[in-house]
């Protein structure tokens, strides 16, 4: 009730007449949301920026740290290394995902539902899992070591393969969406003009998905350049920016240099983000009211070829999971191949034991619950508040910012901001709450966009009608808005839960002895050489996320059947 008092005390920002109590509530809440977002996004980033210009005694030294950084060849080499592995893996994954997406949307291949699900496997696990599997497959004791022709998997090859597997679903989803939104009439026209299939592909299909591809490229590039799980496990001595950041901060507690690497790491991400925004603005809707959905025609050769291709890709994805699952049960790789549950005795190993797993569950649950509440609530305020444009624009800006900030950089900035002794929020440091906040912020943008999209689909008339009938806002919200947006709410909470469960980067700098997490345990156990237990813990994460996804699937299906009949035409 305290905020009631608050709401009446806040001085009016705009003095336009006829503001209903509902408007006041909304405006107050918008201001609260702005303060909250400012505190958890802008201030920490600022403190990191400040840290990068300090020496270890805390004195301002300008750009000296940056000069030191760019003058140390080993650190500088990491930049080119990062660009190389990210560039190579982004282009590779784009190519692979395009073919896969094409098969799913433009052919009459069999088992599409199956291929659709399999492609999502890497989303269920931390990026570490694909790297751990690679160790078992191509490592010195790996089952297929000879396939590498004497090359070592520990290095750029391993990083690239690991990254490609890990970001495959992200690329696929974007490309698939853009392939789906094509006007079938264009193909009818092409056929009528007797265009060859190749020509049709080049002048109709590719231009149609151009922006989707570019968008996917940027997102995949950001993901790969900022991921450090894969490089940590299988990078060997091949340093990349993300592992440098980890080494500077965790390995040497050199926070100033860590801040410098953090800012360097911020660059490609921010550039990719700006470019993506620019491209999206150029994107013109290909669909109009008169569009005809494209329906692929069966073609034996084409369908079978793509079926074979998708089977191969699926085999790799399933194999990745199966390899880790199998290895997690092997007693002592490679000398004692008997199967046992030895590796699941987490309490005897580094990383926090089973407690880490339950902590992860709790953290993911809090992230899902509080994150969804906050994100959906804020999105609602932004979409439905009348007037107050400036404040709403600020929120829009804040919600886009996290997309461009890598998880590790966010976590690092949280150390600087929240662990400062004079920060009144200092008590959050080392708590579960700070990790929840970090996860919510890290995954804010996607969730926010989901919420806004769902809210935009609703006719604004609902609120107007409600208001004119003197139905209080909360009633409209709970009786109309929320039920109609329930699928989106479920999407957001599932997304937040699974990403919080699997993320390493957003929490690696923030966990404390009481709040060890499963994903961090995977990293730490692997770091201590306990690779099989690391695989075992990763399997627990996979299992959990898979269960949550299944639950989400059934809930959504049930909802669509029961409550959302209004949507089906």
């Amino acid at each position: 009730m305290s905020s009631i008092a608050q709401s009446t005390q806040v001085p009016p920002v705009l003095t336009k007449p006829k503001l209903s109590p509902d408007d006041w509530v909304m405006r107050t809440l918008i201001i609260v949301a702005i303060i909250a977002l400012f505190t958890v996004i802008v201030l920490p980033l600022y403190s990191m920026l400040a840290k990068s210009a300090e020496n270890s005694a805390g004195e301002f030294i300008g750009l000296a740290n940056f000069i030191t950084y760019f003058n140390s060849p080993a650190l500088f080499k990491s930049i080119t290394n990062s660009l190389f592995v990210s560039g190579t893996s982004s282009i590779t994954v784009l190519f692979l995902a395009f073919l896969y997406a094409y098969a799913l949307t433009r052919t009459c291949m069999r088992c599409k539902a199956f291929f659709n699900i399999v492609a999502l496997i890497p989303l269920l696990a931390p990026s570490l899992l694909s790297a751990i599997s690679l160790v078992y497959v191509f490592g010195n004791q790996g089952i297929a070591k000879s396939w590498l022709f004497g090359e070592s998997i520990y290095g750029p090859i391993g990083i690239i393969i690991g990254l490609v597997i890990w970001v495959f679903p992200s690329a696929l989803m974007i490309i698939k969406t853009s392939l789906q939104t094509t006007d079938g009439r264009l193909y009818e026209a092409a056929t009528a003009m007797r265009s060859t299939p190749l020509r049709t592909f080049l002048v109709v299909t590719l231009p149609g998905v151009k922006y989707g591809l570019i968008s996917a490229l940027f997102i995949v590039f950001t993901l790969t350049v900022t991921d450090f799980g894969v490089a940590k496990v299988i990078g060997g001595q091949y340093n990349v920016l993300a592992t440098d950041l980890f080494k500077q901060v965790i390995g040497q507690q050199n926070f100033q240099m860590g801040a410098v690497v953090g800012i360097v790491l911020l660059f490609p991400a921010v550039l990719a983000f700006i470019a993506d925004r620019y491209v999206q603005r150029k994107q013109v809707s290909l669909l109009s009211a008169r569009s005809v959905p494209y329906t692929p025609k069966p073609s034996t050769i084409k369908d079978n070829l793509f079926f074979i291709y998708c089977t191969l890709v699926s085999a790799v994805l399933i194999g990745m999971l199966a390899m880790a699952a199998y290895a997690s049960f092997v007693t002592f790789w490679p000398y004692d191949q008997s199967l046992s549950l030895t590796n699941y005795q987490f309490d005897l190993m580094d990383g926090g034991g089973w407690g880490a797993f339950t902590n992860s569950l709790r953290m993911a649950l809090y992230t899902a619950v509080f994150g969804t509440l906050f994100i959906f609530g804020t999105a609602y305020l932004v979409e439905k508040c009348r007037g107050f444009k400036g404040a709403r624009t600020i929120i829009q800006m804040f919600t886009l910012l996290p997309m461009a900030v890598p998880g590790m950089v966010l976590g690092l900035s949280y150390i600087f901001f929240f662990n400062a002794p004079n920060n009144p929020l200092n008590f959050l440091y080392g708590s579960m709450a700070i990790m929840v906040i970090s996860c919510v912020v890290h995954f804010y943008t996607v969730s926010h966009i989901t919420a806004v999209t769902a809210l935009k689909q609703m006719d604004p008339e609902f609120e107007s009608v409600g208001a004119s009938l003197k139905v209080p806002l909360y009633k409209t919200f709970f009786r109309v808005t929320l039920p109609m947006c329930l699928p989106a709410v479920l999407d957001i909470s599932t997304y937040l839960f699974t990403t919080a469960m699997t993320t390493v980067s957003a929490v690696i700098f923030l966990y404390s002895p009481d709040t060890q997490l499963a994903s961090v345990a995977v990293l730490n156990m692997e770091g201590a050489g306990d690779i099989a237990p690391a695989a075992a813990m990763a399997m627990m994460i996979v299992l959990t996320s898979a269960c949550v996804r299944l639950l989400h699937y059934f809930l959504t299906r049930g909802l669509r059947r029961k409550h959302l009949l209004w949507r089906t035409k």
Partner: protein
Amino acid sequence: MKMKFIPCKVKSALTSLSVAMLLAGSYQAQAATELTVYTALEADQLKMYSSSFEEEYPDIKINWVRDSTGIVTAKLLAEKENSRADVVWGLAGTSLLLLANEGMLEPYAPKGVEKLSPSFKDTSNPPTWTGMDAWVASICYNEIESKKLGLPKPTSWKDLLDPVYQGHLIMPNPGSSGTGFLDVSSWLQIFGEDEGWAFMDGLHKNIDRYTHSGSKPCKLAAAGEIPIGISYAYRAARLINKGAPLSVIVPTEGVGWDMEAGGIIKGTKNLAAAQKLMDFSVTVKANEMYNKSFAVLAIPGIAKPVKNFPPEITERMIDNDFAWAAANRSKILTEWNSRYNAKSEPKK
């Protein structure tokens, strides 16, 4: 009118999310004193250590913060102004010396401290730190994989310079691992600075990669990922007991070692409980517990041999100059980093 504000109540719940989560996060806090203990002990030892301490002092609960030696040290130094740790228990002696030099340790003479060997406690009175046991560098040699690759069994450090081992050696990064640091500091002491760095230059050519943790090289050797790992004797003995096809090699030139030690962090809010932990750490009972993993103990004359622990190791332990190692730690690490940090980097 009141009804209209209900959504705001909902939202206020949401904006006070941190409060709710805090409650959820701190539900464990209860009457017993909780000691935050920073440690670099092996994870599989922690449970035994805390339960045997909590058996004696049921009103004190240990919360471990465990990581590699270098990391725990760096963490302690970084948190100097606002330390989260109450006690350090099971960290390299060199690191405790460093903390003592920084004035971060609260001097305290645990009950029974007089029983410890003189080299296992700080010379000032009351001492700022007390030793527990010593851990000793060794080479983990995988018999099966080495045979496959035709690698001869090395007997000395210098043997490892043979090009035959190229790409078949692995060692911990001294920046993050205490074992890695004691290797480097012992080579500099055994061979002298110039020859020591020359030795490492040669070794670097054969090293496949440097690991973050000190036990990982031995675990990787045990798993056959690499035939030879530079690690420490206790880990090797443990893995052999678990069935790994390893043998422990104690190089003839002598091996570096460091003690594990403990101390109280200055400014702890739980001083009384911290002192109890230090009392416990020098008891015979605690030493017998250390003996499960270490062959050399702080209290002389009570050590029982550890299974598969190389017996010749005690006479090959070098006369380690801890003060020198602690004083030069940062300089050595900077030099090491500039020489070997990026394995892929061409040498200057």
